[in-house]
């Protein structure tokens, strides 16, 4: 069984204590929604969960199929969408996907499938993409290796209506159909998503 559990996660930047002991548990089929105003630590929490930022304290435990994954393994297993995620602007969308697929040692089919659903042409240079298209690419990249845990930071940012519809559907499918699929979503405002089983509000 897949499970994410974190306890008392703390993080400060200089004198500013951004996370002051946040805890939560997410089980398969569940989505944890993290809300709060700008600067309340949503992105920080997600980064800690993703393993790209080290918390100052607390613990983060993630297991798949009863096996606990260490930090390095967790980093490679999760799917991550965030506003500051960027890809290689001198390469095309397809080249980017193929590159990351080869790094992850998987085929790129899933990525292309997602981008096809989101109607993103794959032969354009990433540098020429609009912000909405970039967001779609992020989704394609995140789902490339069919992860179980999705960490989504403002997942519908910059998306137009069809884009948002498409990605919501992807999320829904992930939670319902992917075995052991779970998600943590961070957004400034509350989102209407089925299957949100818990909320953390980091507002002050």
């Amino acid at each position, binding site marked *: 069984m897949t499970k994410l559990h974190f306890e008392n996660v703390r993080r400060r930047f200089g004198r500013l204590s951004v996370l002051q002991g946040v805890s939560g548990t997410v089980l398969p089929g569940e989505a944890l929604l993290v809300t709060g105003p700008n600067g309340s630590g949503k992105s920080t929490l997600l980064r800690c969960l*993703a*393993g*790209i*930022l*080290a918390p100052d304290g607390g613990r983060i435990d993630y297991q798949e199929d009863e096996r606990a994954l260490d*930090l*390095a393994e967790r*980093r*490679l297993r*999760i799917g*991550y969408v*965030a506003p*500051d*995620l*960027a*890809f*290689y*602007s*001198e*390469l095309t969308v397809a*080249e980017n996907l193929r*590159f*990351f697929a080869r*790094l*992850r040692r998987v085929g790129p089919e899933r990525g292309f499938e997602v981008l096809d659903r989101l109607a993103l042409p794959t032969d354009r240079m990433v540098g020429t993409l609009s912000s909405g298209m970039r967001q779609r690419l992020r989704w394609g*990249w995140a789902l490339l290796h069919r992860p179980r845990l999705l960490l989504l930071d403002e997942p519908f940012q910059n998306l137009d209506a069809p884009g948002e519809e498409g990605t919501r559907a992807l999320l829904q499918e992930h939670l319902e159909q992917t075995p052991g699929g779970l998600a943590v979503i961070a957004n400034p405002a509350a989102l209407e998503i089925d299957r949100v089983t818990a909320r953390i509000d980091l507002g002050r």
Partner: protein
Amino acid sequence: MFAKEWRCELRTKVALNTLGLFAVTTLVVASVSLGPLGVSKAQGSALLPVLLWLILLFSVAAGLPRAFVQEEESQTATALRLSATPSALFCGKLLYSLTLVVALEALITPIYVTIMNLEVKSPGLLVASLAAGGYGLAAGSTLVAAIIAQARSKGTLFSVLSFPILLPLLILVIELTRNAVVGDPAGMALAQLLLYDASVSIFGLMLFPVVWNP
């Protein structure tokens, strides 16, 4: 990884241009100052190897850190951190740095030897010293580049951090090059240089995950 690096690079040609331009400019400055003065044979064999390696060193410092700094600045580093195993990443970057250095040496050395009227008695040894020394430059620089990419004032910091590390390499390889010019045997220097290359590679590989990931 390596293929990606080169594809990106060939599309923008930034690193190649920087390295090449810097090296050629330095070379011209050096030769213009020294050439007309007519360096004697004896002085030449002492001085010219030093100058060659200084040119290579500073060119590398100018162009190589980009490998990692670019990833951080264009924010593609996060995607890499979440997709690649550190060892694969390090090897890819190292290979890329290595080919840059080899290209640089291939460009600069023939010009240098010609302009300075340098007579090399053991060309084989020269090639060996370029190879071993070039590798050491690439390996040491790659790890230091990874370190400074996450710090401020990256340009100057790279020079400050890398020179103490590369100093043994430089001393050894300059001696080797000097031997190649005058026709002396390689002696211990080559073995020590290869040992340096191996050590830096192994420890670079071991330390890289610490440097790269939180």
